[in-house]
């Protein structure tokens, strides 16, 4: 393993320190924790939004802390959910008495740890609610699985629920709009090459020189199947077909598109994929109102990408277009 680290035990701590030193005007660490919160007054007079998860997905989630998006983000060890005490610290740091919404990606560990923290906070009469993002169409949503995973679509939940909270909406209203995003957002990813978790020291799965893994999650877990590599457009079609088969996106609809890099993919490749995605959607009469291309929800050094579609209505469109000012997402 060849990595630019100083020791596997210090990665998260040094990464968070580097993040707050890079963006002191946006974020600071809540002392003694792995929680990143907005710089200055933490308790703004609005519903507070908290997200988090394992590290290794940067800029998620600390990069989305700031005006118009999150109030705090909790970082766990690499690919490991943060613990309940840390989430509880985040709740305490940002609750202004208007309630707290936890935005959780659907993984067994994340859900358990965030729920335990919510239970702890409710014992102190803090109003806490949660939404669980489950946008990954690669995996079955059935009684035989834990339900779909939460992946890059989570960024749209941060953005839109964040804008709603900033407008001064109540906790049930912010939750409702977050649920509307979750109902209308779908994603799917693939990998050309696996990632290497630093503490493990070897790739999370092995691929032959001419193979790709379709339907990967964001933690180096293997995907749904392997196939021979073809070309970018064919690969994008594979993902897009599965997303469109959900039946949510049809002729005349307006969508937001995200072509998300997994961490080790050149932007050049993401842009050329987006060229094709835009053409396919146009061919189907689906109007693209907004496009995001870049590394929004990564998986360490994995090479690959995911596609996310979000169907918009007037409310979601207005909230998506609202200003946001965070280290990793700015729009004015």
């Amino acid at each position, binding site marked *: 393993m060849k990595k630019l680290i100083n020791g596997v035990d210090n990665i998260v701590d040094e990464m968070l320190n580097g993040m707050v030193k890079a963006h002191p005007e946006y974020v600071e660490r809540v002392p003694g924790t792995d929680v990143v919160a907005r710089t200055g007054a933490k308790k703004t007079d609005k519903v507070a939004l908290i997200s988090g998860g394992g590290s290794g997905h940067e800029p998620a989630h600390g990069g989305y802390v700031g005006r118009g998006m999150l109030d705090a983000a909790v970082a766990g060890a690499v690919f*490991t*959910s943060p*613990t309940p005490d840390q989430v509880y610290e985040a709740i305490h740091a940002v609750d202004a008495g208007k309630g707290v919404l936890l935005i959780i990606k659907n993984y067994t*560990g994340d859900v358990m*740890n965030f729920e335990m923290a919510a239970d702890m906070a409710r014992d102190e009469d803090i109003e806490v609610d949660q939404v669980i993002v489950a946008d990954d169409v690669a995996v079955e949503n059935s009684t*035989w699985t834990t339900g779909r995973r939460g992946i890059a679509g989570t960024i749209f939940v941060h953005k839109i629920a964040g804008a709603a909270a900033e407008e001064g909406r109540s906790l049930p209203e912010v939750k409702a709009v977050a649920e509307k995003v979750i109902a209308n957002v779908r994603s799917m990813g693939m990998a050309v090459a696996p990632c290497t978790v630093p503490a493990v020291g070897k790739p*999370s799965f092995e691929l032959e020189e001419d193979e790709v893994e379709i339907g990967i999650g964001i933690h180096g*877990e293997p995907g749904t199947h392997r196939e021979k590599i073809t070309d970018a457009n064919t690969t994008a079609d594979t993902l897009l077909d599965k997303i469109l088969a959900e039946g949510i996106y049809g002729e005349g609809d307006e969508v937001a598109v995200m072509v998300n890099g997994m961490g080790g993919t050149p932007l050049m490749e993401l842009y050329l994929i987006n060229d094709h995605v835009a053409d396919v959607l146009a061919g189907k009469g689906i109007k693209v109102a907004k496009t995001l291309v870049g590394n929004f929800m990564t998986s360490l050094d994995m090479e690959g990408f995911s596609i996310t579609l979000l169907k918009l209505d007037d409310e979601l469109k207005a909230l998506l277009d609202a200003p946001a000012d965070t280290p990793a997402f700015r729009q004015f």
Partner: protein
Amino acid sequence: MASAIYQCIEQIGSKIIEHKDFLTELDREIGDADHGINMARGYSEALKALPQEEEDIGAVLKKTGMTLLSKVGGASGPLYGTAYMKAAKVAAGKKALTLEDGKAMMEEAIAGIKMRGKAVQGEKTMLDALIPAYEALTEGMAAGKSPYECLADMCAAAEKGVEYTKTIRATKGRASYLGDRSIGHQDPGATSSLYTLEAIRDFVKGL
């Protein structure tokens, strides 16, 4: 001198730390390759945090649970943390345990894991080692076997449970996304549960 309960936790921790790489390797095959790393970190921290001379078994188990909860992460942290904290309630204030106490603690721990994990037996989880182990312990006690024999039966049943996890498909946790591809692999959580029970058995043998 360290209390008996501290020495017992130390023995469990040593066993988990010794098998750290194997547990991680099992998790790499069907999960996200961190089970051994996370569990070893949790026990190392717990052994540092525990009061070595505290004899109140409930207090030591509660502290163990709280530390695992805050240091392990993933799903294992809440599950093992809950298990220890539930067992701690049964042992609160006690300085010695009977086999009957041990059985009651295990029953509470299993109930806690089911509640937190929203899981039942047969889903390729730690419950597939723990539930048969509990049943074997109960049967051994009913048959009037010695405490060590009961614990040996308990571990043998847990080991069979771990073997059983190789034959079934995961329907809970991250491995569930693999569908039938999870068949043939041994569940990491069931395996760390087996190590925990074996360490308890060996500790009791050494008393």
